[in-house]
């Protein structure tokens, strides 16, 4: 053997040993969980709340010794509320940052886009903030739903309206995936309850001036107005309803109306507005009280909304699944998630074979004197709906 060959052998040996050492050191490091969230852009307020949920969960899990004897650590990116950016970031998380697992982004639209990425790499993704049914009914195997589907967001509004004997409903929506699913579901629910749908129209994402569409709503003169919204548009529509003097007997929004900021921005104008929420702090789910307390200690003065609790719960679910699977292997975690049936701080979690949520329940509230009072369903209601909503001139 020449000296050159010997040297080469030694080098190869050293390299291999080095790689081994590096690998075992890596195994002792934290479990890396990647997520990109909408930290800026249209969905910023909601995405940030979700991020705080993830962060708090990681802290709690680590305080209790982590999972599989390792700590967990999140790697976060900002997708700027853009699906295309989300796709790029999940590719990067999986291929470059080499995270062990991923958690879902904010919103159905972005989840729908990034679900193709984790599917490609067979990496399970608990998606706490996607509630569009279609995402989970496309034969994907590695994505799991946490909350109730978009279709039932306005169920409470419609149900209360029917019980009060109202007859007509108008629906407006942001023209994106999730609100459109809400509109479809609401039309079905309204028909079932005997209400007539008199007006339906979408508006583009990022729309700020609702004069024309609200003028049409006023002309349709519905008893009930349901708006399938996100946060910015929910605020704008409510303000502009007053400017255009649109006064239905009931008015409800979907996403965004539940944020404390909604009331802070609108003040008295938010009174009587109905909202749908996946979760409220006072709901009696296991660990919810402790979650609320530690959230306010960890993030003083920041919004607490269902997005925070959902993020927290999504991470709880993933950690529980890792624990039961006893490994970070995608297939084993998938099996564990499909078998899970337990209650998080967010309520029930149980998915069917497609990963579609079947256990979680929605609630409807109304803003009354600056507080969200749960008015539906009856078994969880904390108060009665103030009905009908008076005209703007009398508020």
């Amino acid at each position, binding site marked *: 053997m020449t000296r050159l060959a010997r040297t080469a052998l030694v080098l190869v040996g050293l390299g291999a040993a080095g790689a081994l050492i590096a690998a075992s050191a890596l195994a002792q490091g934290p479990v890396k969980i990647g997520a990109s969230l909408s930290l*800026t*852009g249209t969905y910023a307020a909601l995405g940030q709340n979700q991020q705080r949920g993830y962060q708090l969960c990681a802290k709690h899990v680590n305080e209790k010794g982590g999972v599989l004897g390792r700590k967990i650590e999140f790697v976060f990116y900002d997708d700027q509320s853009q699906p295309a950016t989300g796709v790029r970031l999940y590719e990067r998380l999986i291929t470059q940052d080499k995270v062990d697992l991923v958690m879902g982004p904010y919103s159905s639209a972005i989840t729908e886009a990034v679900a193709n990425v984790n599917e490609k790499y067979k990496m399970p993704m608990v998606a706490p903030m996607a509630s569009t049914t279609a995402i989970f009914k496309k034969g994907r195997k590695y994505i799991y739903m946490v909350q109730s589907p978009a279709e039932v967001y306005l169920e409470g509004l419609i149900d209360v309206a029917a019980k009060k004997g109202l007859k007509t409903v108008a629906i407006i929506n942001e023209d994106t995936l999730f609100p459109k699913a809400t509109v479809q579901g609401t039309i079905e629910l309204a028909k079932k309850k005997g209400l007539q749908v008199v007006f339906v129209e979408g508006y583009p994402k990022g729309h*700020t001036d609702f*004069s024309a569409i609200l*003028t*049409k709503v006023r*002309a349709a003169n519905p008893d009930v107005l349901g708006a399938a919204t996100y946060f910015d548009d929910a605020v704008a529509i409510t303000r502009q309803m007053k400017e255009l*003097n649109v006064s239905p007997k009931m008015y409800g929004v979907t996403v965004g109306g539940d944020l404390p900021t909604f009331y802070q921005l609108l003040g008295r104008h938010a009174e009587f507005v109905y909202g749908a929420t996946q979760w409220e702090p006072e709901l009696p789910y296991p660990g919810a009280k402790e979650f609320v307390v530690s959230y306010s200690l960890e993030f003083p003065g920041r919004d607490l909304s269902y997005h925070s609790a959902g993020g927290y719960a999504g991470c709880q679910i993933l950690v529980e699944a890792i624990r039961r699977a006893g490994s970070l292997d995608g297939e084993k975690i998938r099996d564990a998630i499909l078998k899970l049936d337990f209650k998080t701080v967010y309520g029930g979690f149980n998915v069917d074979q497609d990963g579609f949520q079947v256990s979680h329940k929605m609630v409807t509230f109304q803003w009354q004197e600056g507080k969200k009072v749960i008015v539906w369903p009856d078994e969880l209601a904390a108060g009665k709906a103030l009905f009908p909503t008076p005209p703007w001139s009398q508020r």
Partner: protein
Amino acid sequence: MNVVITPAMVGQVVVSGLLAGALYSMVALGLALIFGVMRVINVAHGTLLTMGAYTTFWWFRLLGVNPYLSLLVSMPVMFVVGIGLQRAMVRRVVNAPELSSLLLTFGISIALVNGLQLAFTSDLRTVEFLTGAFVVGGVALSKSRLVAFGFALVITLGAYWFLQATRFGKAIRATSQSPMVAMVCGVNVERVHLYTFGIASALAAAGGSLVAIMFAIQPEMGQVYTFKSFLVIVLGGAGNYPGALLGGMLLGLIEQLSSLFLTTQLSEAVAYVLLVLVLLVRPTGLLGGRAT
């Protein structure tokens, strides 16, 4: 599932369109000035508007004084900021190929937006002042939009008078007609550039201050106004100042009417389809370009 359109509804949206249009005219006049004088398309124009909006928000939040008075702060402050930008950066690309100025102002815009996000977070903010509407014969006139309309009209006409009647206004117009000839006639072209950028920034800031009282604001809100202003000056004729006034009103009406007669989803597309058509059929704009 649609509604029958009545004359009252048309009246309502025409009013809404004109109210919005005056604001578009004012903001677009700033963009038109910069383009006319320097052949620079200022992509950061909307961001300067955002900065005006935040000035008003903080004025109202910290002082609690009538937010319309904040125009007295936002306009001069942004005038100075505009002059600073021109002096430090934009000056260097005035005679460069158009792509240079596009890239530079685009970069400025990104830097400013991110600065605003860092400083003020991307949370939505509102100025709760003068909400609600006067209802006149079935048409609701939003109070804040009505006042904004008044301010926009006065400021725009004031700027227009300044361009027509004052010595410096004439220097600006002369420079936009022919920098060379203006220079030969003793106009300090460099100084004209400087103040033009300042005036344009102040116009954007005024727009921002008024927008902040009507809509919720956030750091990225300005981009839409850059696009709209661009549309306005193409419709009206790039570099044609009365054209910007007409274009603004037209855009307001087109947006609202197409939203009423077609659907709201299509309303934004209609304006941009019109942009393409104007560029194809009458590239000098409806009133013809470059005339003053």
